[in-house]
């Protein structure tokens, strides 16, 4: 019960943060020239702030996250890395499935539940993704998309360290997803374990992006603009499906 209340409190906190940001950005929009002032297709009125945060993120990545991800790739053998990725992913099926139901996609929601059931048992706590072998496809829903389906507008582009490309709506959604991710709630009373799991999760997430690094730096004239375009397109496609 206490845990439920804590989760509710964090969900509320995330939504409040999102609402505040939406208000602030709505004001920024009124003061600005309507298209973010950069003359581009992307709505990015906070570009100065975003670029600063982007630089901070790149700095953290260069000195900490990327080296850690490279070490992880070098030291941990592939089957173990796959197991780790599957373990985190399996628990995300709870959130994906819940969000699928909230978006009125019962079929995808049920598939998610079936995946969770199969992978947590036959797949040994999610280490093996047996469900995908059975052609139960992994969904791709999050609370930001749910809010979009419910008609909440995205607001201006927002780049934040650790979170990456976002906007007020998706940031609130991200907060809700993190607050309701069962793994975090499960290890709440064991801070050392929780912190290790958070770091491992971040490192494995970064490791998955390593192959894209060269392509992005080769392809882009201005990395910030290139990533912004890609993030906006990607998000639009996720919401559309």
């Amino acid at each position, binding site marked *: 019960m206490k845990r439920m209340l804590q989760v509710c409190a964090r969900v509320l906190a995330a939504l409040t943060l999102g609402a505040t940001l939406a208000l602030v950005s709505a004001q920024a929009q009124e003061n600005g020239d309507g298209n973010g002032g950069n003359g*581009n297709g992307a709505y990015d009125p906070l570009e100065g702030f975003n670029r600063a945060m982007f630089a901070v993120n790149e700095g953290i990545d260069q000195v900490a996250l990327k080296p850690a991800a490279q070490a992880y790739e070098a030291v941990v053998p592939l089957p173990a890395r796959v197991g780790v990725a599957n373990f985190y992913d399996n628990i995300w099926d709870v959130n994906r499935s819940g969000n699928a139901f909230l978006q009125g996609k019962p079929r995808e929601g049920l598939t998610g539940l079936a995946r969770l059931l199969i992978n947590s048992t036959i797949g040994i706590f999610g280490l093996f993704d047996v469900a995908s072998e059975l052609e139960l496809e992994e969904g791709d829903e999050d609370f930001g998309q749910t809010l979009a389906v419910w008609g909440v507008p995205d607001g201006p582009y927002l780049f934040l360290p650790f979170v990456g490309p976002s906007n007020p709506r998706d940031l609130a959604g991200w907060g809700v997803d993190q607050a309701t991710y069962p793994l975090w709630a499960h290890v709440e009373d064991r801070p050392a374990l929780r912190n290790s799991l958070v770091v491992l999760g971040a490192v494995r997430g970064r490791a998955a992006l390593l192959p894209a690094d060269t392509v992005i730096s080769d*392809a882009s004239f201005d990395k910030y603009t290139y990533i912004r375009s890609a993030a906006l397109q990607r998000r639009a496609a996720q919401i559309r499906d």
Partner: protein
Amino acid sequence: MILSMKRWFWPLLTLFCSVAQAAPVQPPDELVRAVTENVLTAVRTDKDIQNGNSQKTLALVNTKVLPAFNFERMTGLALGRDWNKATPAQKKQLAELFRDLLVRTYSNALSQYRDQTVRYKPFAMKAGDTDALVRTEIIKPGSRAIQLDYSLGLESKGWKIYDVVVAGVSLVTNYRDTFREEVSKGGIDGLIKSLSDKIKKLDEKRK
């Protein structure tokens, strides 16, 4: 003689036309499949390509991949409104530079596709269609499948790819903001210059 010519003219013309028509236009899904399989086979079997030999990789891309693309159309899409500001000569130059940039960017990544497989999704097309979308999925052990879609248009020389969309992100329109910025700074010539500078930089990096 003249009489016999006359007699043979129409049947021959009809025959000729029907042969020309029957000359197989490779359907879009088969074209995508052929290009993909050619590349995957080379990447899986050729040790030099696996070890990142850029000469050999470029040769593979030039012979097996480039003929399937329409770079002028891709460049037009990437530039959006600004495309009409370019003269025919500039258009030609831009298309060549954009092609070189994409080839350098993505051929470098080819060696990473060794342990991946491609799933071709069901493809349907109506007779008379001049635009088609071929959907595929890249499957890599231990990670989520990535959607990879190709847009193709029918031209006099057959179907040509004019856009590649990875997980909802178009590799072509992703350049729109960048190109617009370059054009607003230095016009079409400015964009041509920054494209050639970028390609020069990538070539120096490879050496």
